[in-house]
């Protein structure tokens, strides 16, 4: 992405979740991949994600959730983006999104229905969302 303006991403861990390790790795990996990462850290509310995205004119919001409450924490996020005037922003989500071991199919469906553009299962390596993001932003 030399010579082009670097795209900005907002990265964070939603809700009451304090898992900080993956957040540090994603920050490093997306930065290495040439993105400008605005990392709002752990325990971030929907409002904090959206506020940060507006302030930095971000191209995408990347939500992590590792503790199983993702379903409750992410509900209505797309609608809040719309209200805030960034209804078209790319919304990615990944992690252990629900309590317990479940087939990923229905979980993906659930979050797609909630307005997330891409949904990743536990154990996804950073390379995958990086490639998707390049594709979705037309950088590939």
């Amino acid at each position: 992405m030399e010579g082009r303006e670097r795209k900005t991403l907002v990265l964070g861990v939603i809700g009451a979740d304090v898992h900080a390790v993956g957040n540090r790795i994603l920050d490093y990996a997306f930065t290495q991949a040439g993105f400008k990462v605005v990392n709002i850290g752990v325990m971030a509310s929907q409002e904090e994600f959206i506020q940060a995205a507006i302030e930095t004119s971000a191209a995408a919001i990347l939500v992590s959730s590792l503790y199983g409450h993702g379903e409750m924490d992410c509900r209505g996020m797309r609608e809040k983006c719309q209200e805030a005037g960034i209804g078209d922003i790319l919304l990615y989500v990944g992690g252990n999104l629900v309590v317990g071991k479940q087939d990923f199919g229905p979980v993906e469906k659930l979050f797609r229905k909630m307005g997330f553009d891409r949904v990743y299962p536990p154990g996804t390596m950073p390379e995958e969302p990086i490639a998707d993001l390049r594709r979705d932003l037309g950088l590939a």
Partner: protein
Amino acid sequence: MELSVKQMDPEEFGRQRQEVLTAWPTGKEVDFDEAVAYQKELPAAKVMAAKLAQGKAKGVTYAQPRAGVALISEHIELLRYLQDEGGADLLPTTIDSYTRQNRYKEAQGGIEESRSIGRSMLNGFPAVNHGVMACRRVVESVGVPVQVRHGTPDARLLAEVTLAGGFTDFEGGSISYNIPYAKDVPVENTIKYWQYVDRLVGLYEENGVRINREPFGPLTGTLVPPSISHAVGVIEAVLAVAQGVKSLSLGYGQCGNLIQDVAALHTLPLLAQEYLKKLGYPEVMITTVFHQWMGGFPQDEAKAYGVISWGAVAAALGKATKVIVKTPHEALGIPTKEANAAGLRTTKQVLNMLRDQTLPQTEELTLEEKMILRETRLILDKVLELGEGDMAVGSVRAFQAGVIDVPFAPSRFNVGKILPARDTTGAVRILDFGCLPFDREIRDFHQERIARRGRDEGRDPSFQMVIDDIYAIGKGMLVGRPRG
């Protein structure tokens, strides 16, 4: 109230108590004298401190799972299953993440939604919302001691409700449940919150009821050098004993190198005893807790069983008093009760096979022990120096100064400058010392070990090496080697 390691004065405790017990309606169910009477009626088999003392004397290692769901009867069913089908020696009640942040309203929402959709929407048991009587139903439904496990910076109300509810062990501490579990809470605040919890335990003690306390050993669970978690464990032990706690389990999270893990288990109680004595506190019962691998797990269950077993081996050979057990579903989030019981059975098989075996004392083990002792003492002595002899004051200043620095912690009160990495045998060493108060000899030891790995791998030590280490176990390795 000014920060100090000294015992809380009764007035301050009473003032806070009023506030704490009115923070959520169930607080008014707490009646201390009635709770003491209830606790005294519990049979010895259900009292954690009694059971741990027994295990310590016999030299056995107990197995304890993690478990908690939103609704009472489902939670009881889960614990019974782990006791009967998993053979759990000790039981937990893991608290949900909303309760950990004192967000009782959201927890209530989770309870109601769980009820209406028929599956747990919470990742634990919201004990405050359920209240004292519900906790007693849990305790009465099983035959072994039950401990509260959580991750709550301000656990004052949780402690009041659950101890009145018959739980006989309470995990956590001012640092170990703040730095890895919160983003914005000053260490000074959590020390005060946890002095309240410890004082409450002290009051039970003074009324003839022994509650065990367990600082959370693994911290962030990711490449934490033993001396850092040991320093935190000793500080929390001192803070607890100062408030009247008499029974402590000190924890340590598996690093993965057997020699280092056994050395850590050997040194942890020695250090606590040493500093308690040095600071003039009475002798207390100290047991050890070994946490099976706290980092990323392989998704494949067969591989996960290998990781679980390796943790059981280290716990057994290191003679931990208890081991906290992982499950074959670890990589996939909260396990089913079947997977949880399976992890227990695997662990117990290994513990039983190794019951009569130890790791003999060797030069390598002695060296690891020596390094852990020296490093931890350097940190603790600096903490005391910064606090002018006061461990509470010193702890706050130590975090400000980076004298204690927990890798990968979310808290903004943690300096976050140190960088750990594995050496070529998988032992956790320090790549960047940040502001740790280590002398030349210790620094040389760490650098030399990491440099040897760099040579083995033909690359310079860097953050990439650290990332490789974090992913390694999930990919079936301990040391994150470059491909090839």
